[in-house]
């Protein structure tokens, strides 16, 4: 049995990616817009001073352009409906490919040069053109700071279209839930990697992906036909599935303890989760069979898949009271709880 405490608590916040041109509010006059407004005022002054109707014509058109620019950009953005269209596997602090479905509901305005930003977007998306009544799918890189269930509630749409006089902003509502897997530590972070020892396979008397038969059970929908024990099935008259034992050396049992004592910071807890996720990821990448335990739940990589384990880890909340968990001698325990000596000896063993 080994226990793993976080080595150090690092800053889990991503660097601030807010661009210089982003702003709070609805509209901002650009430099060229300012020049145009000043020019309009000058022409207006000249027109009023002289009563020259040719200047009034120019002034009317300039005011018309300003007004139209404001209406077009405001209404154009207003008519854009943004929907979250899914994202691939998401890890905290790591870009993930996702999609936004953007529809231009307007019957009048084509919208061009729209920039989409959001706290969850790794970089702003720039959309060249959305014709009226048209829907496009924008591919984007998402980046989330924290693991867990994240609700995408809003995006910011910016545009300078049509004439660049104003930088208009709109914040449409967005509905989308994303389960963000814990942050995986980079290679630069020193950590113990699980290494399988070939040729030292031992039976563990636990169900797993080994070769020795552990027990039998009835077939349930979803079981692989390759695991049907045909002889027993024939004798009993119903389908029987053989369950094999997990093998050490090709298997690992990971236990994550959600107990967070009062003096341990949230950051340390998150760091421990990241360690666990990294360890889990390394184990799976090494082709090992993994059994993963959190209170009340044990998942196996062969039965439940890797995603369900990361999902469980993503949604794991810290508890204020210790929770009893069954651990083996070889279980790898991740905990922030006080341990015996420097290395934790496990909880509930």
């Amino acid at each position, binding site marked *: 049995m080994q226990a793993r405490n976080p080595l150090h608590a690092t800053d889990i916040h991503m660097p601030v990616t807010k*661009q210089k*041109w982003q702003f709070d509010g609805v509209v901002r006059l*650009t*430099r*060229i817009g300012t*020049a145009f407004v000043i*020019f309009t005022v000058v*022409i207006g*002054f*000249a*027109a*009023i*001073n*002289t*009563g*020259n*109707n*040719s*200047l*009034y*014509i*120019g*002034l*009317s*058109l300039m*005011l*018309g*352009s300003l*007004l*139209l620019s404001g209406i*077009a950009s405001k209404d154009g953005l207003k008519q854009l409906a943004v929907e979250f269209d899914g994202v691939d596997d998401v890890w905290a602090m790591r870009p993930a490919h996702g999609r936004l479905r953007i529809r231009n509901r307007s019957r009048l305005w*084509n919208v*061009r*040069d729209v*920039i989409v930003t959001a706290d969850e977007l790794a*970089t*702003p998306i*720039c*959309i*060249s*053109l959305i014709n009226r009544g048209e829907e496009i799918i924008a591919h984007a890189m998402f980046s989330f700071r*924290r*693991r*867990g*269930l*994240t*609700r995408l509630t809003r995006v910011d749409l910016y*545009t*300078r*279209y*049509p*004439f*660049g*006089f104003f930088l208009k902003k709109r914040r449409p509502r967005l*509905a989308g*839930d994303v389960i963000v897997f814990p942050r995986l530590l980079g290679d630069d972070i020193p950590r113990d990697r699980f290494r399988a020892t070939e040729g030292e396979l031992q039976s563990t008397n636990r169900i797993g992906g080994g070769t020795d038969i552990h027990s039998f059970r009835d077939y349930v929908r979803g079981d692989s036909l390759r695991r049907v024990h045909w002889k027993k099935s024939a004798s009993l008259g119903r389908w029987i599935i053989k369950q094999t034992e997990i093998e050490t050396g090709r298997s690992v049992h990971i236990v994550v303890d959600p107990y967070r004592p009062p003096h341990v910071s949230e950051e340390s807890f998150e760091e421990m989760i990241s360690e666990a996720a990294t360890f889990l990821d390394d184990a799976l990448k090494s082709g090992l069979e993994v059994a993963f335990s959190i209170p009340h739940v044990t998942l196996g990589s062969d039965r439940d898949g890797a995603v369900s384990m990361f999902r469980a880890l993503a*949604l794991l*909340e810290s508890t204020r009271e210790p929770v009893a968990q069954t651990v083996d001698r070889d279980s790898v325990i991740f905990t922030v709880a006080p341990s015996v000596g420097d290395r934790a000896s496990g909880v509930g063993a």
Partner: protein
Amino acid sequence: MNRRFELELLFLAIFAAVPLYATQAISAPPLLAFHAVMTAVAARVAFGKSPEVIPAAVMRVFAIVYVPFYIIDAAAISRSAIAASTHLILFIAAYQAIESAKTRNTAQRLLTASLICTAGVATSTHIAILPFIVFFGFLLLRQLMHLSHEETIAMTGTLIAEPPSGRAASFYVIGALAIGTCLFPFMPRIRNPLLPGMTGPLSNATTGLSDSINLNETRSISSDATVVSRVWMGQETIPFFTPLRLKGTIYERFANNTWIQGRRDFIPLDGSDGTTRVARPEGFTRKAGVQQRFLIGSRLFLPVGSFEVSGAGQLAEGPTRDIFTVWSSHRDTIAYDVALARDTAPRRPQNVTVSDYPVTPAVRAMARQIAGSETDPMRQAGAVEAYLSQRFRYVADPSQIGRTMTVDQFLLHEHRGHCEYFAAGMVALMTALNVPARIVGGFYGGTLNPLTGYFVIRREDAHAWVEVWEGNSWQTFDPTPASLRPGNAHEGLLRVYAAAVADSINYFWDRHILTYGLGDQLALAVSLLESLRAASAAMTASLHTTALRRFMSLLAMLVVAGFVIVMMARRRRSLFDLLASHLHRLGIDVGPSMTTAEALHELRISHPTAAADLAPLIAMYEAERFSGKVERGRVRRIRQRLAGLSES
């Protein structure tokens, strides 16, 4: 920058300067130089070379030198701050085009092109400026869209293809025109008196009317279709006041073989309610409307017979008697109404004398021969008029004669000439008969526009005739043969109608655009108010019927109900928010990383009964949200049941 857009930007500046040739706000050489440089820059860019047609360093030296040159230009060369400033803007445009090789200055260049365009527009009064503005607007908006796209790329650092902008620019030009057309009538037409004369109409107009009739110089007449005036006369007026004569100037003194105007100071005339009396009417009266372009200062070309002028503002008599001028006007065109009388007399008694033409014995003898035994001045004038128009030959183009001649030579030897000779000859003969007479310069005849019902008088209708003093008033005589006077050339029907259509467009431009002012705004406001009042009265009258009143009440209620429903729908909260709100009331805070199922789990611990009630709703919500299976009415049922739970 995209080469196509770079070329378009260069063309924009070149195009912006084109109207300056027509308006002659500045002389041609600087314009030609500007266009030569810009065309050379455009040619280099088109062939993929740098725009530095002149090395940028040299241009910078030019720019430094130009600062003192600007003052010299304004003070000594063009002698006009406006012209010097226009030269400066053209220089800046060329400088920026060359400098663009090193500096990205698209926005500045667009501003400079707009300034050049403004210089052209401000000095133009012709309708041709309108398509120019539209095309310039199209190019400008397209450039702005391109610039906006480039700025967007710079903001995000991502390179995205630029969508085609031609149709979009057309769309926005039409939109801007539509909005501009709506705004134009409502722009404040209050002229700021603080800076008078900063800009104003630049009229380089020439006219058939001149300050003097110099018979020492060869006269030439060229056809000029520029409209001078439009006169509306009703059917009851036309028979008595046509052919039209617009009086422009009076020559009553003779010196050195030249007829000149009688000098006098400008005398302001009193008016009331915007109406000024310029003569005393005699006989029946009629009304007419006039729209006139100013050709000589702000002088009015009043139809003969005018005795009252309305809507022209403060008038003054001058620069000679019986000629009237608007006291202060900065416009090119004016519209006013006149009252016409069959006969008119001067406002005040005039000291009228015989002209100072040096009558020779031969001319005196000729005059006596023509007058015969007549002693009445009017009869004598009639005889002279008839004699000249019947015995003398009218030459439309004075250059046909090939030399200058005196009035005596015209009367005694040549017997041919143009209208000024006929008029001068008659005045000479009347002087010989000791009858006061004077030459009147103005416009004659005009063409009736069958589409709009007004007479169009053009510059080519310039004419001279004679007024003879009757003892109480001046009477008009015209010794030029009637069939040969201006406006009597016969044209085909098609040509007449084509000219009428063109003139109608011009009229609309002149009347409703160029001369649109505060008075028109007030008239428009009154008209709108009256229309509103009439519509309101009509509605009130129609509402007296009970059925209609009920219908309108029902309609109003439906509108209000619809509005309330829309507002409520807008405020509708999402299912998740409603569930979270309900859970919050039960003491469960749904955090950002908590699912509804987890919240339900917590609720089961704290409020098992409430959890049992809420469980099916949460299951329905999860199915609605995540299953992807659409079930009609599910959302409504969840909301209803949730509302029921909240109430209980």
